[in-house]
């Protein structure tokens, strides 16, 4: 059977016949013109795959495309070559409503403090950070804050107890969650041991950073 001069590559790999010292250039399956034609087609496909641009690789370099049909060896991948949110992403919420208050003795949403990340990689880490300033109008009464992931029970709580009427105090929360879905909502929630707690001014921020694996 004559050699098929059309290569499989780039759709799939080829298996080329190896001639021996006893093989003639017109032997069936080894026809030199057909073999050269096949080699040429494969080399042209490899050129297209690698792209244009003269460069020689060095240690720890990677080959990257740097234009349509062009490539180069790069000593260090820069952010230009990494898609947005491919390695990490950040969501944040800042206090905008001034001085929200609550009388709730069980956890309720703290105004403005909700962050939803989409396009999350399952298994990645979500680092949640919250800071805010709180006030209670009753001596020995407390304000407690905590995170809630997708409506689950609150975790990572932090409390302040007023030593004087209307004492103010900062509260900081830090927690690492493991992503189990492609979208997650993290909220800061709060309650007052007795009425009434206040989140002072707009001094509150919730930041969620996803660190992908």
């Amino acid at each position: 059977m004559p050699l098929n001069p059309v290569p499989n590559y780039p759709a799939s790999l080829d298996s080329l016949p190896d001639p021996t010292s006893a093989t003639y250039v017109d032997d069936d399956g080894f026809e030199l013109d057909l073999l050269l034609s096949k080699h040429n087609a494969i080399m042209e496909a490899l050129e297209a795959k690698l792209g244009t641009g003269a460069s020689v690789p060095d240690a720890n370099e990677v080959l990257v495309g740097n234009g349509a049909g062009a490539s180069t060896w790069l000593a260090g991948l820069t952010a230009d070559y990494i898609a947005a949110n491919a390695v990490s992403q950040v969501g944040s919420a800042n206090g905008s409503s001034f001085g929200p208050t609550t009388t709730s003795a069980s956890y309720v949403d703290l105004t403005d403090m909700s962050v939803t990340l989409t396009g999350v990689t399952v298994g990645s880490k979500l680092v949640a950070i919250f800071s805010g300033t709180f006030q209670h109008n009753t001596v020995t009464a407390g304000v407690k804050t905590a995170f809630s992931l997708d409506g689950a029970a609150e975790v990572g709580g932090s409390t302040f107890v007023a030593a004087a009427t209307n004492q103010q105090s900062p509260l900081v929360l830090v927690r690492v969650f493991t992503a189990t879905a492609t979208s997650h909502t993290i909220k800061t929630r709060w309650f007052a041991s007795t009425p009434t707690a206040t989140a002072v001014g707009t001094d509150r921020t919730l930041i969620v950073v996803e660190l992908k694996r």
Partner: protein
Amino acid sequence: MNLNGKRVDLAQLQAELATAGITVPALGTAGEDLHTYDEDGAAIDMPPESAAVLEAHDPAPPPPPVTLDDVIAAAVARALAERGLK
């Protein structure tokens, strides 16, 4: 429900609502918004019938503002008390 600049004492208002037969789990404010909470703790609108109670609400005077000296004095007093000192 918009407060329209009205000052409220939330604990007092919640008691007044209860007296009027309006039961809410808790009250909260965010800016000029007065709200209560659903079973998940999300802020929801006040029941419409609470408007009259809010209108009649006459809040107790606010406590005097606290100073840093007050906080320090209270902390010192508590520390001394814990050690049985005066």
